[in-house]
C-alpha cells in the first residue's frame, strides 16, 4: 500500500501546482471533466495491469478498441438491436484477447511479438470491416452511456470506478488474482506449485481484450461513431498509466489502485497543460518527462527497499 501513497502524493502535488497556476483547475466541472477524460485509458489500463503483473505486455489493446467498435457498428447497421451489437463488440474483444493468450501460452511466442502481430491484425480487420470509413448514427439512448450521469457523476466515470472495484477485488481476494501475482513473480515456481499457468495467463489476456471492447463501446457512444482508426497509441498511454501507478514491468508487484492514480495523473497533466495554454509541442515533452520521472522514482524507492530493479 505504501507504493500507492507515493503515487497519490505525486498526483496531489501536481493538482496543487495546477491549483496555484490557474484558477480554472480546481472547479467541480473541470475535475469531473478530467476524470471523465481519464476513463478510456483508465479502463484499458486495468487490463494492462493484469497483463503486466504476469510480466507480460499487450500492444494490441488500441487496435482491439477499433476492431470491437467497428464490429459493434457493423452489427448495429446490419439490424441487430444495440444491446446485441454491443455484446458482439465485447465478444470480438474477448476473442482477440484470448487469441493473444493462446499465441503466448500454446504458441510460446513472447507477449511483445504475439500482441504486436495482433495489433496489426486487429487494425487491418477494423479497416476491412468498415471499408476504412467511420460508422455513425446511434440512438440517443445508447449515447447516454457517454453523455448521461448518475447523481451528477458522468456514467463513464461510474462504469470505470465499478471496473476498478471489481478488478481490485479480483486481484486481492480471488484465486485468479493470487495466481496472477504468482505467475509474474516467478512463472517456473508457479508452474511447479501446480498452478495452471497457461489457463490463467490466457484468461489475463482475455480480460485485457474484453476491457478494450468495453472502452470501445464508451468511445463509440462518446463520438457517435465507430472509427477504424480509433485507439491508435492507446496501448502506450495505458502502459504509461500502469507504470506511473507503480506496477513493475518485471511482473509480480503492483495494483489497480496505483493504475487508477496513474491514469488520473496522465489525465490531470493533459488537462492542466491545456488549461495553461502550453504549446502542443511542449505538452508531448512534458508528458514523456513525467513518465520517465515516475519510473526513476519507482526505481529509487525499490533500491531503498532492496528490491530488484532490473
Amino acid at each position: 500500500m505504501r507504493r500507492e501513497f507515493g503515487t497519490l502524493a505525486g498526483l496531489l502535488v501536481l493538482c496543487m501546482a495546477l491549483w496555484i497556476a490557474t484558477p480554472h483547475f480546481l472547479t467541480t466541472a473541470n475535475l469531473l471533466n478530467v476524470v471523465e477524460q481519464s476513463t478510456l485509458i483508465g479502463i484499458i489500463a486495468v487490463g494492462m495491469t493484469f497483463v503486466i503483473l504476469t510480466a507480460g505486455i499487450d500492444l494490441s489493446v488500441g487496435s482491439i478498441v477499433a476492431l470491437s467498435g467497428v464490429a459493434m457498428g457493423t452489427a448495429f447497421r446490419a439490424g441487430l438491436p444495440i444491446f446485441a451489437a454491443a455484446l458482439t463488440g465485447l465478444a470480438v474483444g474477448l476473442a482477440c484477447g484470448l487469441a493473444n493468450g493462446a499465441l503466448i501460452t500454446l504458441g510460446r511466442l513472447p507477449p511483445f511479438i504475439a500482441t504486436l502481430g495482433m495489433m496489426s491484425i486487429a487494425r487491418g480487420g477494423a479497416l476491412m470491416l468498415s471499408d476504412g470509413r467511420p460508422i455513425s448514427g446511434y440512438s440517443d439512448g445508447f449515447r447516454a452511456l457517454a453523455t448521461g450521469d448518475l447523481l451528477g457523476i458522468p456514467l463513464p466515470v461510474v462504469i470505470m470506478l465499478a471496473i476498478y472495484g471489481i478488478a481490485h477485488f479480483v486481484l486481492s481476494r480471488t484465486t485468479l488474482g493470487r495466481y496472477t501475482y504468482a505467475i509474474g513473480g516467478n512463472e517456473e515456481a508457479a508452474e511447479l506449485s501446480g498452478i495452471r499457468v497457461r489457463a490463467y495467463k490466457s484468461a489475463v489476456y482475455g480480460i485485457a481484450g474484453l476491457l478494450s471492447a468495453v472502452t470501445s463501446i464508451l468511445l463509440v457512444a462518446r463520438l457517435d461513431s465507430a472509427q477504424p482508426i480509433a485507439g491508435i497509441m492507446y496501448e502506450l498511454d495505458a502502459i504509461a498509466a500502469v507504470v506511473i501507478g507503480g506496477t513493475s514491468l518485471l511482473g509480480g508487484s503492483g495494483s489497480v489502485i496505483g493504475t487508477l492514480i496513474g491514469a488520473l495523473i496522465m489525465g490531470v497533466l493533459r488537462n492542466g497543460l491545456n488549461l495553461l495554454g502550453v504549446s502542443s509541442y511542449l505538452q508531448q515533452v512534458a508528458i514523456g518527462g513525467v513518465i520517465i520521472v515516475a519510473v526513476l522514482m519507482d526505481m529509487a524507492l525499490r533500491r531503498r527497499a532492496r528490491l530488484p530493479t532490473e
Partner: protein
Amino acid sequence: MRSARWSTWIAIAAVLAGPFAWACNRGDDVGGGTTVALVLKTLNNPFFIELAAGAQEAADSLGIELLVQAPDREIDVEKQMQIIENLLQTDIDALALTPSGSREVVPAIAKANRAEVPVLIVDTRADAEALAAAGATVATFIGSDNVEGGRIAGRFVAEALGGEGNVAVIEGIPGHETGDSRLRGFREAISEYPGISIVASQTANWERDQAFNVTQNMLQSHSDLRAIFAANDVMALGAVEAVASAGRTGDLVVVGFDAQDEAVAAIREGVMSASIAQHPREMGRIAVESAWKILQGDSVPAEQPVSIELVTE
C-alpha cells in the same frame, strides 16, 4: 542510493519547470482581455502552421490573446474533443476550430454552445446533419470551396493528358469533409472526359510515408498509370518520391492540393505538375477577425469562402 534520489528530484523539478515557466510567461495575458482559442487538427502539417501564423498576426494587431492547441495526430478526434472541453473550462471568449472529424466533433461544439462560447469553423466543415440533430450551432464557416478546387485539379489533369489515359487518386482520411469534397470535384471533372478513367483510388490518411507506399503499389499494379491526384500536398510529395524511385519522374502528372512551400518548390523543379493553392494564412486571419467582430456584437456571414487557384509554376 542517495545520489539516485537527488537525481530523481532534480529531474522532477526540471520536468515541471518547463511548462510552468511557460505558463508564468503567459500568465499576464490569460484571463485579462479577450482570449480566442484556435484548435487545429494538428500542428505537424505546414498548412495548419500557416493557418496558425495568420491567426496570430491578426490577434497581435487586434491586441487579443490567441491560444493555439492541437492533438499530436491529425486523426485523433477524441483528443481534440478533450482539448476543447479543457479550454472551455478557462475564460476563452471564442473558439475557432478545424474539426478532426466532421461528425464526431459535434458534441464538443454543443458543449461550447452551452458555455455560450461562439464557435467558428475553419477549413473543414462540421457535419450539418449532425449539428442539427444535436441542436448545435456554429457562427460561421471560413474555408476554401474544396469541390471547386477538386474540379480545377481534374480539368488540369485531363488537359495535361490530352483527354486520354489512366489516373490514380490518393485519398485523405475517409470521412474528412475537405478530402471528400476535393475527390468529389475531381471525379466530377474527370467524368466529363470519356477517355480518362480512374483506375485506382486509395487512402494514405493524409500522410507522406503512407502515400509513398500506396503510390509504389499503384505503380506496380498499373504500369500504364499517367497521372496521380493526391488530396493534399503532403501525400502528393510522397507520391513524387515514389515516382522518382521508380525512375519515372517527368513521365507522370502529379497534382496535389494546398500549394505548400515544398510542393511549390517541387513544381518549380519540374518533379511535380501542379497544386491547388489555398490560403491558410488568410483563413487564420479571417477566423480571428470574425471572432473579434462576433464578440463586438457585429454579425458575420455564415459562409466565408477563401479564394483558391491553380499553381503550375
